[in-house]
């Protein structure tokens, strides 16, 4: 987990220190700080949405990602729930980061996340009961979503509240986007519709959102069943990697390759 986290923790730490010494800073320092902060936010957005997307790159939280993305409505519901939990847990973890003993930080993070998941679960039970039922066990299972505890451990526990909240927001949006795209693919292939059952999430007006993309005599069950999720997910990751490779190729290769001599042995 830690190997894949962004390397911007050090710079965030630096910002943190400047924030503490804010009283003594003069005008030029504060503008410099602002620029750095903006760069930090930009980096966080890129990391969360693309470079370090929890769904496509970190491959965290695959269980709900694959299990409930049968329709766009389900995917959106779970995506929003995860987003909410992620932001709240990041803020809380960041707020109490100075008082959490290092040795027992993981149980503390889990308890915080569990508390927020319980809140979200009760809220969904109260206001979106249909969706609550169709998400089933995967709603309480957000507690075990590695993307959330991963962000708490790798980012929120080392950075101030604002950045942590923004990081949670971007990571959550990135995760929700993957969920929705996957849900859309599977819903179109599986039953030929889009936004079927959106009224469960958004209220009765949303039932008019339902789009009949294609008319099938019979459902393509594979797309709705878990194997379809794995295959579609594989394709999404492949597309992302292809785009990355293309972008890398488009960049002018400036640094000269150094000649290295490699000793080849046949032992392995």
């Amino acid at each position, binding site marked *: 987990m830690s190997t894949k986290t962004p390397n911007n923790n050090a710079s965030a730490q630096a910002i943190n220190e400047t924030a503490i010494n804010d009283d003594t800073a003069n005008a030029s320092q504060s503008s410099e700080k602002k620029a750095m902060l903006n760069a930090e936010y930009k980096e966080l957005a890129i990391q969360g949405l693309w470079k370090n997307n929890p769904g496509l790159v970190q491959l965290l939280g695959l269980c709900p990602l694959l299990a409930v993305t049968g329709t766009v409505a389900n995917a959106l519901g779970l995506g929003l729930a995860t987003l909410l939990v992620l932001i709240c847990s990041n803020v809380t973890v960041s707020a109490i980061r100075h008082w959490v003993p290092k040795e027992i930080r993981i149980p503390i993070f889990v308890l915080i996340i569990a508390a927020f998941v319980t809140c979200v679960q009760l809220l969904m039970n109260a206001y979106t009961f249909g969706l609550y039922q169709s998400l089933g066990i995967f709603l309480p299972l957000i507690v075990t979503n590695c993307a959330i505890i991963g962000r708490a451990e790798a980012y929120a526990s080392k950075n101030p509240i604002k950045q942590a909240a923004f990081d949670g927001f971007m990571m959550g949006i990135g995760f929700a986007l993957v969920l929705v795209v996957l849900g859309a693919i599977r819903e179109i292939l599986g039953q030929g519709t889009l936004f079927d059952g959106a009224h469960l999430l958004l209220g009765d007006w949303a039932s008019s959102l339902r789009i009949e993309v294609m008319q099938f005599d*019979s459902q393509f*069950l*594979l797309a709705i069943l878990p194997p379809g999720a794995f295959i579609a997910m594989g394709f999404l990751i492949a597309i992302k990697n292809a785009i990355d490779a293309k972008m890398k190729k488009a960049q002018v290769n400036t640094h000269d390759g150094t000649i290295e001599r490699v000793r080849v042995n046949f032992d392995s």
Partner: protein
Amino acid sequence: MAFWIASSPHNHIQSETSQLMRHVIYAAIPGIFAQWYFFGWGNLIHIGLAILTALLCEFTILALRNKPISKELFDGSAILTAVLLGICLPALAPWWITVIGVIFAIGIAKQLYGGLGHNPFNPAMTGYVVLLISFPLQMTTWQPPLSLLNIELNLSNTLSAIFTGFTLEGYSVEQIRTGIDGITMATPLDTLKTNTTLGLTVYESMTANVFGDNFALGWEWINAGFVIGGIYLIIKKMIPWQTPVSFLAGIFICSFIAYSINPDSSPSTMFHWLSGATMIGAFFILTDPVTGATSIKGRIIVGLLAGLLVYLIRTFGGYPDGVAFAILLCNMAAPLIDQYTRPRTYGHTKG
């Protein structure tokens, strides 16, 4: 002067992939002929459609991958996959079943993994299982043998039924399947399974007309046809004999034990051998050189395992036939089995 050093074996016939594939396709002809004789033109049409789709699909992906098209397109592997898938489909399944199955088999199960020689799962069986899971209704509407049909099913009627769902006279596929007494006829395996759950004994359910005089009307001859083709392949040394023999032995052991304990609810070994996809699985699919085990001991283990799985799925599973599932599971296990059944290198001690 340089010596050309190659690893063993040093003495082998320089046969090419396309040659092997061609022989396997030839060997399938007796079985296909029996299928045509008992079930009509349906499967021939599906095979033709499958070959066409397979070549198109293979061509597209090879072009995308910048591979030598003419060499790999006609190495016969895509055609063989298409033939095997076409044989497995219900004769009157709609045309898009074949197209989707072949696209999945060639595009995803074979080419996405890296093409011929890199696919961990048998493409034909993957395509078949995808279809079976996705379209259970269409994939289980098996048509009874021609001799039991009320409606004459000639070439044009079959074509029309596959492409439009109705014969030229307007009979639906469902009506074709219905016998004189108004009851839909299923395959022998399916009938047996339903009847045993209803509490009938095997002997009682064997009186149904889909079973014919011996074991399974039509199916027994199709299976016999594939045995002939398989023996031809073994004689030609195209496939190892250990795989089919151990597979059939696996089914024999399981069904013999079950028959000895409870003859009322377990059919005989011959019924298991000669109905469903047993023989095509044993000689044509389990022997796939890419996805099967490679060592002799490994082949025997894979065969026995597949036999056990087929018996278990047929007896306790949700689907009437389990050859495709059993073979895919064995494909999954093959690398591990190979790992533990490495033959001893000459000159090395055991262990």
